[in-house]
Protein backbone atom coordinates (compact mmCIF):
# COMPACT_ATOMS: atom_id res chain seq x y z
CA UNK A 1 0.00 0.00 0.00
CA UNK A 2 1.15 3.47 -0.81
CA UNK A 3 2.30 5.52 2.12
CA UNK A 4 0.06 8.39 2.96
CA UNK A 5 2.57 11.03 2.13
CA UNK A 6 3.35 9.64 -1.29
CA UNK A 7 1.77 11.40 -4.23
CA UNK A 8 1.29 9.55 -7.52
CA UNK A 9 0.86 11.55 -10.68
CA UNK A 10 -0.15 9.89 -13.90
CA UNK A 11 1.13 11.34 -17.15
CA UNK A 12 -0.57 10.22 -20.35
CA UNK A 13 0.50 11.35 -23.80
CA UNK A 14 0.01 10.09 -27.36
CA UNK A 15 2.70 7.81 -28.72
CA UNK A 16 5.63 9.33 -30.56
CA UNK A 17 4.19 8.93 -34.02
CA UNK A 18 5.72 12.07 -35.44
CA UNK A 19 8.25 14.70 -34.55
CA UNK A 20 6.07 16.85 -32.36
CA UNK A 21 4.60 14.02 -30.29
CA UNK A 22 8.13 12.65 -30.13
CA UNK A 23 9.06 15.95 -28.49
CA UNK A 24 6.11 15.63 -26.11
CA UNK A 25 7.29 12.20 -25.04
CA UNK A 26 10.82 13.44 -24.61
CA UNK A 27 9.95 16.52 -22.58
CA UNK A 28 7.51 14.60 -20.42
CA UNK A 29 10.11 12.03 -19.50
CA UNK A 30 12.74 14.71 -18.92
CA UNK A 31 10.40 16.52 -16.56
CA UNK A 32 9.52 13.32 -14.73
CA UNK A 33 13.17 12.45 -14.26
CA UNK A 34 14.00 15.89 -13.01
CA UNK A 35 11.02 16.22 -10.68
CA UNK A 36 11.39 12.68 -9.29
CA UNK A 37 14.88 13.61 -8.18
CA UNK A 38 13.67 16.83 -6.60
CA UNK A 39 10.59 15.39 -4.93
CA UNK A 40 11.29 11.88 -3.67
CA UNK A 41 7.76 11.51 -2.37
CA UNK A 42 6.19 12.12 -5.75
CA UNK A 43 5.87 9.12 -7.98
CA UNK A 44 5.08 9.41 -11.69
CA UNK A 45 3.35 6.90 -13.88
CA UNK A 46 3.99 7.53 -17.54
CA UNK A 47 2.08 6.09 -20.46
CA UNK A 48 2.32 6.75 -24.15
CA UNK A 49 -0.61 5.49 -26.20
CA UNK A 50 -1.03 4.98 -29.92
CA UNK A 51 -4.77 5.70 -30.06
CA UNK A 52 -7.76 6.84 -28.05
CA UNK A 53 -9.01 3.47 -26.82
CA UNK A 54 -5.49 2.67 -25.63
CA UNK A 55 -5.16 6.05 -23.99
CA UNK A 56 -8.44 5.54 -22.16
CA UNK A 57 -7.27 2.09 -21.14
CA UNK A 58 -4.04 3.55 -19.83
CA UNK A 59 -5.75 6.14 -17.64
CA UNK A 60 -8.21 3.55 -16.40
CA UNK A 61 -5.28 1.40 -15.37
CA UNK A 62 -3.66 4.36 -13.64
CA UNK A 63 -6.77 4.82 -11.54
CA UNK A 64 -7.55 1.20 -10.81
CA UNK A 65 -4.10 -0.28 -10.34
CA UNK A 66 -1.73 2.59 -9.59
CA UNK A 67 -4.10 4.69 -7.52
CA UNK A 68 -3.00 8.04 -8.90
CA UNK A 69 -3.76 11.34 -7.18
CA UNK A 70 -3.49 13.48 -10.28
CA UNK A 71 -3.54 13.04 -14.02
CA UNK A 72 -1.66 15.12 -16.56
CA UNK A 73 -2.99 14.28 -19.97
CA UNK A 74 -2.41 15.39 -23.51
CA UNK A 75 -5.42 13.78 -25.16
CA UNK A 76 -4.68 12.44 -28.63
CA UNK A 77 -8.25 13.03 -29.67
CA UNK A 78 -9.93 15.26 -27.07
CA UNK A 79 -13.50 14.53 -28.16
CA UNK A 80 -12.97 10.83 -27.76
CA UNK A 81 -11.21 11.24 -24.43
CA UNK A 82 -13.60 13.64 -22.77
CA UNK A 83 -15.88 11.22 -21.01
CA UNK A 84 -13.03 9.02 -19.84
CA UNK A 85 -11.20 12.02 -18.42
CA UNK A 86 -14.38 13.11 -16.76
CA UNK A 87 -14.54 9.75 -15.03
CA UNK A 88 -11.07 10.32 -13.62
CA UNK A 89 -12.18 13.70 -12.41
CA UNK A 90 -15.33 12.22 -10.91
CA UNK A 91 -13.18 9.72 -9.05
CA UNK A 92 -11.74 12.71 -7.20
CA UNK A 93 -8.46 13.10 -9.00
CA UNK A 94 -6.76 16.36 -9.91
CA UNK A 95 -6.81 16.66 -13.69
CA UNK A 96 -4.52 18.70 -15.91
CA UNK A 97 -5.33 18.79 -19.59
CA UNK A 98 -2.62 19.80 -22.03
CA UNK A 99 -2.82 21.30 -25.50
CA UNK A 100 -6.23 20.10 -26.61
CA UNK A 101 -9.55 21.38 -25.39
CA UNK A 102 -12.00 18.80 -24.12
CA UNK A 103 -15.44 18.87 -25.60
CA UNK A 104 -17.16 19.86 -22.38
CA UNK A 105 -16.05 22.65 -20.12
CA UNK A 106 -15.14 22.43 -16.50
CA UNK A 107 -13.69 18.92 -16.46
CA UNK A 108 -10.09 19.86 -15.88
CA UNK A 109 -8.63 21.63 -12.89
CA UNK A 110 -5.83 23.02 -14.94
CA UNK A 111 -5.50 23.63 -18.67
CA UNK A 112 -2.11 24.19 -20.26
CA UNK A 113 -2.27 24.74 -23.96
CA UNK A 114 -0.73 25.98 -27.09
CA UNK A 115 -2.70 27.94 -29.58
CA UNK A 116 -3.47 25.93 -32.71
CA UNK A 117 -5.56 28.47 -34.60
CA UNK A 118 -2.91 31.02 -33.63
CA UNK A 119 -0.23 28.89 -35.26
CA UNK A 120 -2.11 29.08 -38.54
CA UNK A 121 -2.94 32.74 -38.13
CA UNK A 122 0.66 33.69 -37.35
CA UNK A 123 1.92 31.89 -40.40
CA UNK A 124 -0.70 33.60 -42.54
CA UNK A 125 0.23 36.95 -41.09
CA UNK A 126 3.88 36.48 -41.88
CA UNK A 127 3.26 35.27 -45.41
CA UNK A 128 1.03 38.24 -46.09
CA UNK A 129 3.68 40.62 -44.88
CA UNK A 130 6.47 38.85 -46.77
CA UNK A 131 4.48 38.89 -49.99
CA UNK A 132 2.89 42.32 -49.95
CA UNK A 133 2.08 42.11 -53.66
CA UNK A 134 0.42 38.78 -53.22
CA UNK A 135 1.62 35.38 -54.26
CA UNK A 136 0.96 31.71 -54.64
CA UNK A 137 0.98 29.45 -51.61
CA UNK A 138 0.78 25.67 -51.34
CA UNK A 139 -0.13 24.01 -48.07
CA UNK A 140 1.20 20.70 -46.79
CA UNK A 141 -1.10 19.61 -44.03
CA UNK A 142 -0.64 17.09 -41.26
CA UNK A 143 -3.15 14.33 -40.76
CA UNK A 144 -6.90 14.68 -40.89
CA UNK A 145 -7.44 15.25 -37.18
CA UNK A 146 -8.95 18.22 -35.34
CA UNK A 147 -5.78 20.16 -34.51
CA UNK A 148 -4.79 20.05 -38.14
CA UNK A 149 -8.19 21.40 -39.03
CA UNK A 150 -7.88 24.20 -36.46
CA UNK A 151 -4.50 25.24 -37.79
CA UNK A 152 -5.73 25.08 -41.34
CA UNK A 153 -8.84 27.11 -40.55
CA UNK A 154 -6.73 29.65 -38.71
CA UNK A 155 -4.49 30.02 -41.71
CA UNK A 156 -7.30 30.27 -44.22
CA UNK A 157 -9.04 32.90 -42.11
CA UNK A 158 -5.75 34.77 -41.97
CA UNK A 159 -5.23 34.93 -45.72
CA UNK A 160 -8.85 35.51 -46.53
CA UNK A 161 -9.46 38.73 -48.39
CA UNK A 162 -5.79 39.22 -49.15
CA UNK A 163 -4.20 38.70 -52.51
CA UNK A 164 -2.53 35.53 -51.30
CA UNK A 165 -3.64 32.71 -53.50
CA UNK A 166 -3.77 29.21 -51.97
CA UNK A 167 -3.10 26.89 -54.87
CA UNK A 168 -3.68 23.55 -53.21
CA UNK A 169 -3.52 21.65 -49.96
CA UNK A 170 -2.61 18.00 -49.38
CA UNK A 171 -1.90 15.83 -46.36
CA UNK A 172 1.73 15.09 -45.67
CA UNK A 173 1.06 13.17 -42.47
CA UNK A 174 3.47 15.16 -40.35
CA UNK A 175 6.44 13.33 -41.70
CA UNK A 176 9.38 14.14 -43.88
CA UNK A 177 8.93 11.44 -46.46
CA UNK A 178 5.45 12.56 -47.29
CA UNK A 179 6.53 16.20 -47.16
CA UNK A 180 9.15 15.38 -49.78
CA UNK A 181 6.76 13.41 -51.93
CA UNK A 182 3.90 15.90 -51.91
CA UNK A 183 6.22 18.86 -52.47
CA UNK A 184 7.87 17.16 -55.43
CA UNK A 185 4.49 16.79 -57.06
CA UNK A 186 3.45 20.34 -56.24
CA UNK A 187 6.63 21.53 -57.87
CA UNK A 188 5.82 19.50 -60.95
CA UNK A 189 2.34 20.85 -61.04
CA UNK A 190 2.78 24.55 -60.21
CA UNK A 191 5.36 26.55 -62.10
CA UNK A 192 4.96 29.48 -59.75
CA UNK A 193 5.04 29.05 -56.02
CA UNK A 194 6.06 31.87 -53.71
CA UNK A 195 5.54 30.33 -50.32
CA UNK A 196 4.93 26.97 -48.71
CA UNK A 197 3.10 26.57 -45.45
CA UNK A 198 3.63 23.19 -43.83
CA UNK A 199 2.43 23.95 -40.28
CA UNK A 200 5.04 21.49 -39.03
CA UNK A 201 8.81 21.42 -39.18
CA UNK A 202 9.08 17.72 -39.96
CA UNK A 203 7.08 18.28 -43.12
CA UNK A 204 9.17 21.37 -43.86
CA UNK A 205 12.38 19.37 -43.84
CA UNK A 206 11.03 17.03 -46.49
CA UNK A 207 9.63 19.88 -48.54
CA UNK A 208 12.91 21.76 -48.42
CA UNK A 209 14.79 18.79 -49.86
CA UNK A 210 12.31 18.61 -52.71
CA UNK A 211 12.66 22.32 -53.39
CA UNK A 212 16.43 22.06 -53.39
CA UNK A 213 16.32 19.08 -55.69
CA UNK A 214 14.23 21.08 -58.15
CA UNK A 215 16.66 23.97 -57.82
CA UNK A 216 13.84 26.36 -57.02
CA UNK A 217 15.03 27.49 -53.58
CA UNK A 218 15.33 31.08 -54.75
CA UNK A 219 11.71 31.30 -55.78
CA UNK A 220 10.02 30.55 -52.52
CA UNK A 221 10.23 30.23 -48.77
CA UNK A 222 8.83 27.71 -46.33
CA UNK A 223 6.96 28.44 -43.11
CA UNK A 224 6.63 25.51 -40.77
CA UNK A 225 5.75 25.34 -37.14
CA UNK A 226 6.53 23.84 -33.74
CA UNK A 227 10.13 25.00 -33.35
CA UNK A 228 12.20 22.01 -34.31
CA UNK A 229 15.89 22.53 -33.55
CA UNK A 230 17.03 21.85 -37.08
CA UNK A 231 14.77 24.58 -38.45
CA UNK A 232 15.65 26.96 -35.64
CA UNK A 233 19.32 26.59 -36.54
CA UNK A 234 18.49 27.48 -40.12
CA UNK A 235 16.48 30.51 -38.98
CA UNK A 236 19.41 31.55 -36.87
CA UNK A 237 21.75 31.18 -39.81
CA UNK A 238 19.48 33.42 -41.84
CA UNK A 239 18.61 30.82 -44.44
CA UNK A 240 16.30 32.64 -46.86
CA UNK A 241 14.39 29.42 -47.43
CA UNK A 242 13.24 29.35 -43.80
CA UNK A 243 13.04 32.97 -42.74
CA UNK A 244 10.93 32.24 -39.68
CA UNK A 245 9.31 29.51 -37.65
CA UNK A 246 6.18 29.57 -35.52
CA UNK A 247 6.54 28.19 -32.03
CA UNK A 248 4.39 25.44 -30.75
CA UNK A 249 6.63 23.80 -28.27
CA UNK A 250 6.10 20.24 -27.16
CA UNK A 251 7.75 21.36 -23.92
CA UNK A 252 4.33 22.56 -22.78
CA UNK A 253 3.85 19.10 -21.33
CA UNK A 254 6.77 19.73 -18.98
CA UNK A 255 5.17 22.97 -17.83
CA UNK A 256 1.98 21.09 -17.11
CA UNK A 257 3.73 18.41 -15.11
CA UNK A 258 5.66 20.99 -13.13
CA UNK A 259 2.54 22.98 -12.35
CA UNK A 260 0.64 19.89 -11.30
CA UNK A 261 3.50 18.73 -9.09
CA UNK A 262 3.76 22.07 -7.41
CA UNK A 263 0.06 21.90 -6.70
CA UNK A 264 0.82 19.00 -4.38
CA UNK A 265 4.31 19.85 -3.17
CA UNK A 266 4.31 23.60 -3.04
CA UNK A 267 1.03 24.01 -1.28
CA UNK A 268 0.00 26.51 -3.95
CA UNK A 269 -3.40 26.13 -5.47
CA UNK A 270 -2.89 25.81 -9.19
CA UNK A 271 -5.91 26.06 -11.43
CA UNK A 272 -7.23 27.73 -14.51
CA UNK A 273 -5.84 28.14 -18.00
CA UNK A 274 -2.27 28.63 -19.12
CA UNK A 275 -2.16 29.40 -22.80
CA UNK A 276 1.32 29.34 -24.27
CA UNK A 277 1.27 31.72 -27.16
CA UNK A 278 2.21 30.62 -30.59
CA UNK A 279 4.90 33.16 -31.37
CA UNK A 280 6.75 33.92 -34.53
CA UNK A 281 10.39 32.92 -34.22
CA UNK A 282 12.71 35.15 -36.20
CA UNK A 283 16.43 35.54 -36.39
CA UNK A 284 16.12 38.09 -33.58
CA UNK A 285 14.46 35.96 -30.96
CA UNK A 286 15.54 32.50 -32.08
CA UNK A 287 18.16 32.08 -29.37
CA UNK A 288 15.60 31.81 -26.60
CA UNK A 289 14.02 28.79 -28.34
CA UNK A 290 17.18 26.86 -29.09
CA UNK A 291 17.81 23.88 -26.81
CA UNK A 292 20.80 21.75 -27.79
CA UNK A 293 19.58 18.80 -25.75
CA UNK A 294 16.18 18.47 -27.33
CA UNK A 295 15.73 15.62 -29.79
CA UNK A 296 12.97 17.58 -31.47
Amino acid at each position, binding site marked *: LAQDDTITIGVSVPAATHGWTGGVNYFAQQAIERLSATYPNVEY*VFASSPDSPKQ*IADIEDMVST*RDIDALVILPGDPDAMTSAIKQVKDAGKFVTVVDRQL*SIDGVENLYVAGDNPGLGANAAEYIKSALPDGGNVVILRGM*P*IPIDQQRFDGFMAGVEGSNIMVLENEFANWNRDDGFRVMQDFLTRFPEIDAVWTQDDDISLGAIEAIKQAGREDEMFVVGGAGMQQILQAVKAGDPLTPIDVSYSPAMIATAIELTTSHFTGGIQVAGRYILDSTVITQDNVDQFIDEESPF
Partner: protein
Amino acid sequence: MSVSAPEVAPKARSGFRWDLKTVGPLLALALLVLLGITLNENFLSYNNITNVLARSSFIGIIAIGATFVITAGGLDLSVGSMAAVIAGVMIMVMNWLIPVMGVGWGVILAGMAAGILLGGVAGVGNGLMITRGRIEAFIVTLGTMGIFRSLVTFLADGGTLSLNFQVADVYRPVYYDGLLGIPYPILVFALVAIGGEIVMRRTSFGRHCAAIGSNEQVARYSSISVDNVRLITYILQGLLVAVAVLLYVPRLGSASSTTGVLWELEAIAAVIIGGTTLKGGYGRVWGTVVGVVILGLIGNILNLQSFISPYLNGAFQGVIIILAVLLQRPRRAS
Protein backbone atom coordinates in the same frame (compact mmCIF):
# COMPACT_ATOMS: atom_id res chain seq x y z
CA MET B 1 -3.98 -68.01 -41.71
CA SER B 2 -6.61 -66.15 -39.84
CA VAL B 3 -4.48 -64.03 -37.59
CA SER B 4 -6.52 -60.91 -37.69
CA ALA B 5 -4.99 -58.06 -35.79
CA PRO B 6 -7.66 -56.36 -33.72
CA GLU B 7 -8.59 -53.33 -35.75
CA VAL B 8 -9.61 -50.34 -33.77
CA ALA B 9 -12.85 -49.18 -35.17
CA PRO B 10 -12.51 -45.46 -35.79
CA LYS B 11 -15.16 -44.65 -33.27
CA ALA B 12 -16.05 -41.24 -32.09
CA ARG B 13 -12.88 -39.24 -32.16
CA SER B 14 -12.22 -38.32 -28.56
CA GLY B 15 -13.60 -34.81 -28.90
CA PHE B 16 -10.97 -32.87 -27.07
CA ARG B 17 -7.23 -33.34 -27.40
CA TRP B 18 -5.37 -32.10 -24.42
CA ASP B 19 -2.19 -31.30 -26.26
CA LEU B 20 0.13 -28.32 -26.49
CA LYS B 21 -1.79 -26.88 -29.37
CA THR B 22 -4.79 -26.71 -27.11
CA VAL B 23 -3.11 -25.74 -23.88
CA GLY B 24 -0.69 -23.34 -25.55
CA PRO B 25 -2.78 -20.19 -25.47
CA LEU B 26 -4.14 -21.04 -22.03
CA LEU B 27 -0.60 -21.53 -20.75
CA ALA B 28 0.47 -18.18 -22.18
CA LEU B 29 -2.55 -16.59 -20.53
CA ALA B 30 -1.76 -18.20 -17.18
CA LEU B 31 1.84 -16.99 -17.34
CA LEU B 32 0.69 -13.46 -18.06
CA VAL B 33 -1.74 -13.53 -15.15
CA LEU B 34 1.05 -14.73 -12.86
CA LEU B 35 3.26 -11.92 -14.08
CA GLY B 36 0.48 -9.45 -13.43
CA ILE B 37 -0.08 -10.71 -9.91
CA THR B 38 3.56 -10.42 -8.99
CA LEU B 39 3.75 -6.91 -10.40
CA ASN B 40 0.77 -5.38 -8.65
CA GLU B 41 -1.59 -6.45 -5.92
CA ASN B 42 -4.47 -4.67 -7.62
CA PHE B 43 -4.06 -6.76 -10.73
CA LEU B 44 -6.74 -9.26 -9.81
CA SER B 45 -9.07 -6.60 -8.41
CA TYR B 46 -12.61 -6.52 -9.70
CA ASN B 47 -12.03 -3.10 -11.20
CA ASN B 48 -8.95 -4.04 -13.10
CA ILE B 49 -10.32 -7.28 -14.44
CA THR B 50 -13.57 -5.71 -15.60
CA ASN B 51 -11.67 -2.79 -17.11
CA VAL B 52 -9.44 -5.06 -19.14
CA LEU B 53 -12.21 -7.32 -20.29
CA ALA B 54 -14.62 -4.51 -21.12
CA ARG B 55 -12.15 -2.66 -23.26
CA SER B 56 -11.03 -5.86 -24.97
CA SER B 57 -14.60 -6.49 -25.98
CA PHE B 58 -14.48 -4.39 -29.19
CA ILE B 59 -11.51 -6.19 -30.60
CA GLY B 60 -12.90 -9.40 -29.18
CA ILE B 61 -16.20 -9.18 -30.99
CA ILE B 62 -14.46 -8.20 -34.21
CA ALA B 63 -11.92 -10.99 -33.82
CA ILE B 64 -14.69 -13.55 -33.47
CA GLY B 65 -15.95 -12.46 -36.87
CA ALA B 66 -12.40 -12.68 -38.17
CA THR B 67 -12.19 -16.24 -36.87
CA PHE B 68 -14.91 -17.27 -39.29
CA VAL B 69 -13.46 -15.30 -42.18
CA ILE B 70 -10.01 -16.76 -41.64
CA THR B 71 -11.28 -20.30 -41.02
CA ALA B 72 -13.00 -20.14 -44.39
CA GLY B 73 -9.69 -19.19 -45.99
CA GLY B 74 -10.38 -15.46 -46.22
CA LEU B 75 -9.01 -12.29 -44.69
CA ASP B 76 -10.52 -8.93 -43.83
CA LEU B 77 -8.15 -6.01 -43.46
CA SER B 78 -10.94 -3.45 -43.53
CA VAL B 79 -12.46 -4.05 -40.08
CA GLY B 80 -10.71 -1.14 -38.37
CA SER B 81 -11.75 1.48 -40.89
CA MET B 82 -15.14 -0.15 -41.20
CA ALA B 83 -15.56 0.37 -37.46
CA ALA B 84 -14.59 4.02 -37.89
CA VAL B 85 -17.07 4.66 -40.67
CA ILE B 86 -19.86 2.84 -38.86
CA ALA B 87 -19.18 4.85 -35.71
CA GLY B 88 -19.15 8.05 -37.75
CA VAL B 89 -22.40 7.31 -39.51
CA MET B 90 -24.09 6.22 -36.27
CA ILE B 91 -23.11 9.48 -34.66
CA MET B 92 -24.27 11.53 -37.62
CA VAL B 93 -27.58 9.69 -37.76
CA MET B 94 -28.17 10.21 -34.07
CA ASN B 95 -27.25 13.87 -34.23
CA TRP B 96 -29.55 14.39 -37.22
CA LEU B 97 -32.45 12.66 -35.58
CA ILE B 98 -32.38 14.64 -32.36
CA PRO B 99 -34.44 17.52 -33.80
CA VAL B 100 -36.99 14.99 -35.03
CA MET B 101 -37.10 12.45 -32.26
CA GLY B 102 -35.75 14.34 -29.29
CA VAL B 103 -33.06 13.05 -26.95
CA GLY B 104 -33.75 9.53 -25.78
CA TRP B 105 -33.51 5.87 -26.52
CA GLY B 106 -35.42 6.28 -29.75
CA VAL B 107 -32.53 8.16 -31.30
CA ILE B 108 -30.04 5.69 -29.98
CA LEU B 109 -31.94 2.70 -31.28
CA ALA B 110 -32.24 4.36 -34.66
CA GLY B 111 -28.49 4.98 -34.62
CA MET B 112 -27.87 1.37 -33.68
CA ALA B 113 -30.08 0.17 -36.50
CA ALA B 114 -28.20 2.37 -38.94
CA GLY B 115 -24.90 1.00 -37.65
CA ILE B 116 -25.95 -2.62 -37.97
CA LEU B 117 -27.34 -1.98 -41.42
CA LEU B 118 -24.14 -0.31 -42.55
CA GLY B 119 -22.05 -3.14 -41.12
CA GLY B 120 -24.11 -5.64 -43.05
CA VAL B 121 -23.86 -3.63 -46.25
CA ALA B 122 -20.10 -3.22 -45.88
CA GLY B 123 -19.79 -6.96 -45.34
CA VAL B 124 -21.91 -7.67 -48.39
CA GLY B 125 -19.72 -5.33 -50.41
CA ASN B 126 -16.48 -6.98 -49.35
CA GLY B 127 -17.99 -10.41 -49.73
CA LEU B 128 -19.42 -9.87 -53.18
CA MET B 129 -16.22 -8.44 -54.58
CA ILE B 130 -14.32 -11.41 -53.20
CA THR B 131 -16.76 -14.15 -54.15
CA ARG B 132 -18.47 -12.90 -57.29
CA GLY B 133 -15.67 -10.59 -58.40
CA ARG B 134 -13.05 -13.30 -57.75
CA ILE B 135 -10.56 -10.77 -56.38
CA GLU B 136 -8.04 -11.76 -53.77
CA ALA B 137 -9.48 -10.96 -50.32
CA PHE B 138 -6.28 -9.22 -49.29
CA ILE B 139 -6.64 -6.74 -52.13
CA VAL B 140 -10.38 -6.17 -51.80
CA THR B 141 -10.19 -5.45 -48.10
CA LEU B 142 -7.00 -3.43 -48.44
CA GLY B 143 -8.94 -1.36 -50.95
CA THR B 144 -12.04 -0.99 -48.82
CA MET B 145 -9.82 -0.24 -45.83
CA GLY B 146 -8.64 2.84 -47.69
CA ILE B 147 -12.11 3.66 -48.90
CA PHE B 148 -13.74 3.42 -45.47
CA ARG B 149 -10.93 5.38 -43.86
CA SER B 150 -11.29 8.14 -46.43
CA LEU B 151 -15.01 8.16 -46.04
CA VAL B 152 -14.92 8.79 -42.33
CA THR B 153 -12.33 11.52 -42.83
CA PHE B 154 -14.56 13.06 -45.43
CA LEU B 155 -17.68 12.80 -43.28
CA ALA B 156 -15.84 14.31 -40.35
CA ASP B 157 -14.38 16.97 -42.62
CA GLY B 158 -10.93 16.06 -41.42
CA GLY B 159 -11.89 16.44 -37.80
CA THR B 160 -13.95 14.51 -35.32
CA LEU B 161 -17.61 13.59 -35.36
CA SER B 162 -18.93 13.97 -31.85
CA LEU B 163 -22.14 12.66 -30.46
CA ASN B 164 -24.50 15.21 -28.99
CA PHE B 165 -23.84 15.39 -25.27
CA GLN B 166 -27.29 14.74 -24.04
CA VAL B 167 -27.60 11.66 -26.19
CA ALA B 168 -24.14 10.60 -25.10
CA ASP B 169 -25.27 10.81 -21.51
CA VAL B 170 -28.21 8.53 -22.19
CA TYR B 171 -26.10 6.14 -24.24
CA ARG B 172 -23.08 6.05 -21.91
CA PRO B 173 -24.45 3.37 -19.52
CA VAL B 174 -24.32 0.86 -22.37
CA TYR B 175 -20.60 0.82 -21.91
CA TYR B 176 -20.21 1.70 -18.27
CA ASP B 177 -23.12 -0.07 -16.57
CA GLY B 178 -23.84 -3.74 -16.39
CA LEU B 179 -25.86 -6.58 -15.05
CA LEU B 180 -25.03 -8.18 -11.69
CA GLY B 181 -21.79 -6.28 -11.62
CA ILE B 182 -20.69 -7.47 -15.05
CA PRO B 183 -20.36 -4.59 -17.50
CA TYR B 184 -22.52 -4.88 -20.60
CA PRO B 185 -19.57 -4.98 -23.01
CA ILE B 186 -18.28 -8.07 -21.25
CA LEU B 187 -21.72 -9.63 -21.36
CA VAL B 188 -22.10 -8.95 -25.06
CA PHE B 189 -18.60 -10.23 -25.74
CA ALA B 190 -19.36 -13.39 -23.78
CA LEU B 191 -22.63 -13.91 -25.63
CA VAL B 192 -21.00 -13.41 -29.01
CA ALA B 193 -18.20 -15.74 -28.01
CA ILE B 194 -20.50 -18.49 -26.81
CA GLY B 195 -22.71 -18.06 -29.85
CA GLY B 196 -19.65 -18.07 -32.09
CA GLU B 197 -18.24 -21.21 -30.54
CA ILE B 198 -21.57 -22.97 -30.98
CA VAL B 199 -21.91 -21.82 -34.56
CA MET B 200 -18.38 -22.93 -35.32
CA ARG B 201 -18.67 -26.34 -33.71
CA ARG B 202 -22.30 -27.23 -33.92
CA THR B 203 -23.77 -25.81 -37.08
CA SER B 204 -23.34 -26.74 -40.67
CA PHE B 205 -22.21 -23.18 -41.38
CA GLY B 206 -19.21 -23.61 -39.08
CA ARG B 207 -18.40 -26.99 -40.52
CA HIS B 208 -18.68 -25.58 -44.02
CA CYS B 209 -16.33 -22.70 -43.20
CA ALA B 210 -13.68 -25.17 -42.13
CA ALA B 211 -14.30 -27.32 -45.19
CA ILE B 212 -13.94 -24.38 -47.56
CA GLY B 213 -10.82 -23.16 -45.84
CA SER B 214 -9.38 -26.64 -45.94
CA ASN B 215 -10.06 -27.39 -49.60
CA GLU B 216 -12.39 -25.33 -51.69
CA GLN B 217 -12.74 -27.97 -54.39
CA VAL B 218 -13.70 -30.67 -51.94
CA ALA B 219 -16.25 -28.32 -50.45
CA ARG B 220 -17.73 -27.63 -53.87
CA TYR B 221 -17.91 -31.30 -54.71
CA SER B 222 -19.60 -31.85 -51.35
CA SER B 223 -22.50 -29.64 -52.38
CA ILE B 224 -21.44 -26.69 -50.28
CA SER B 225 -22.20 -23.32 -51.86
CA VAL B 226 -18.69 -22.07 -51.44
CA ASP B 227 -19.46 -18.54 -52.54
CA ASN B 228 -22.47 -18.20 -50.29
CA VAL B 229 -20.76 -19.50 -47.20
CA ARG B 230 -17.82 -17.26 -47.84
CA LEU B 231 -20.08 -14.30 -48.47
CA ILE B 232 -21.84 -14.97 -45.19
CA THR B 233 -18.53 -14.93 -43.31
CA TYR B 234 -17.89 -11.42 -44.57
CA ILE B 235 -21.42 -10.30 -43.74
CA LEU B 236 -21.08 -11.80 -40.29
CA GLN B 237 -17.79 -9.96 -39.93
CA GLY B 238 -19.47 -6.70 -40.94
CA LEU B 239 -22.34 -7.23 -38.50
CA LEU B 240 -19.98 -8.05 -35.66
CA VAL B 241 -17.93 -4.95 -36.40
CA ALA B 242 -21.19 -3.03 -36.08
CA VAL B 243 -21.98 -4.73 -32.77
CA ALA B 244 -18.54 -3.78 -31.50
CA VAL B 245 -19.17 -0.21 -32.57
CA LEU B 246 -22.48 -0.15 -30.67
CA LEU B 247 -20.36 -0.58 -27.55
CA TYR B 248 -17.57 1.67 -28.73
CA VAL B 249 -19.61 4.78 -29.39
CA PRO B 250 -20.92 5.15 -25.81
CA ARG B 251 -17.34 4.86 -24.59
CA LEU B 252 -15.78 7.51 -26.80
CA GLY B 253 -18.78 9.42 -28.05
CA SER B 254 -16.85 10.33 -31.17
CA ALA B 255 -15.32 9.06 -34.36
CA SER B 256 -12.48 10.39 -36.44
CA SER B 257 -10.06 9.25 -39.06
CA THR B 258 -7.94 7.67 -36.36
CA THR B 259 -10.70 5.49 -34.94
CA GLY B 260 -9.93 1.81 -35.24
CA VAL B 261 -6.50 2.21 -36.80
CA LEU B 262 -4.65 -1.13 -36.72
CA TRP B 263 -7.58 -3.00 -35.25
CA GLU B 264 -7.36 -5.39 -38.17
CA LEU B 265 -3.86 -6.44 -37.23
CA GLU B 266 -4.84 -6.84 -33.61
CA ALA B 267 -7.88 -8.91 -34.48
CA ILE B 268 -5.91 -11.17 -36.82
CA ALA B 269 -3.17 -11.54 -34.21
CA ALA B 270 -5.75 -12.57 -31.59
CA VAL B 271 -7.23 -15.11 -33.96
CA ILE B 272 -3.88 -16.69 -34.69
CA ILE B 273 -2.65 -16.60 -31.12
CA GLY B 274 -5.83 -18.49 -30.35
CA GLY B 275 -4.78 -21.32 -32.60
CA THR B 276 -6.82 -20.73 -35.75
CA THR B 277 -4.86 -21.49 -38.91
CA LEU B 278 -4.11 -18.40 -40.99
CA LYS B 279 -4.46 -20.36 -44.22
CA GLY B 280 -7.89 -21.58 -43.22
CA GLY B 281 -9.40 -24.96 -42.52
CA TYR B 282 -9.35 -24.89 -38.77
CA GLY B 283 -10.73 -22.32 -36.40
CA ARG B 284 -11.68 -22.08 -32.78
CA VAL B 285 -13.59 -19.24 -31.26
CA TRP B 286 -12.61 -19.91 -27.66
CA GLY B 287 -8.99 -19.66 -28.74
CA THR B 288 -9.67 -16.25 -30.22
CA VAL B 289 -11.19 -15.13 -26.93
CA VAL B 290 -8.04 -16.24 -25.14
CA GLY B 291 -5.97 -14.45 -27.74
CA VAL B 292 -7.89 -11.23 -27.25
CA VAL B 293 -7.54 -11.42 -23.49
CA ILE B 294 -3.81 -12.08 -23.84
CA LEU B 295 -3.42 -8.98 -25.99
CA GLY B 296 -5.52 -6.96 -23.54
CA LEU B 297 -3.46 -8.12 -20.59
CA ILE B 298 -0.18 -7.25 -22.25
CA GLY B 299 -1.20 -3.61 -22.38
CA ASN B 300 -2.51 -3.73 -18.84
CA ILE B 301 0.66 -5.31 -17.47
CA LEU B 302 2.81 -2.74 -19.19
CA ASN B 303 0.92 -0.12 -17.19
CA LEU B 304 1.58 -1.98 -13.93
CA GLN B 305 5.30 -1.45 -14.04
CA SER B 306 7.75 1.31 -14.72
CA PHE B 307 10.91 -0.62 -15.63
CA ILE B 308 10.28 -0.86 -19.33
CA SER B 309 10.68 2.39 -21.21
CA PRO B 310 7.35 3.20 -22.82
CA TYR B 311 9.24 3.37 -26.09
CA LEU B 312 9.81 -0.34 -25.73
CA ASN B 313 6.17 -1.29 -25.13
CA GLY B 314 5.88 -2.43 -28.70
CA ALA B 315 8.92 -4.65 -28.30
CA PHE B 316 7.44 -6.26 -25.19
CA GLN B 317 4.17 -6.86 -27.00
CA GLY B 318 6.00 -8.34 -29.94
CA VAL B 319 7.93 -10.72 -27.74
CA ILE B 320 4.82 -11.88 -25.88
CA ILE B 321 2.91 -12.46 -29.10
CA ILE B 322 5.70 -14.60 -30.48
CA LEU B 323 6.04 -16.50 -27.22
CA ALA B 324 2.30 -17.14 -27.00
CA VAL B 325 2.39 -18.82 -30.37
CA LEU B 326 5.70 -20.54 -29.70
CA LEU B 327 3.96 -22.39 -26.87
CA GLN B 328 1.62 -24.07 -29.32
CA ARG B 329 3.84 -24.63 -32.29
CA PRO B 330 3.47 -27.92 -34.09
CA ARG B 331 6.15 -30.45 -33.46
CA ARG B 332 8.38 -31.14 -36.45
CA ALA B 333 6.49 -33.18 -38.99
CA SER B 334 8.54 -36.35 -39.02
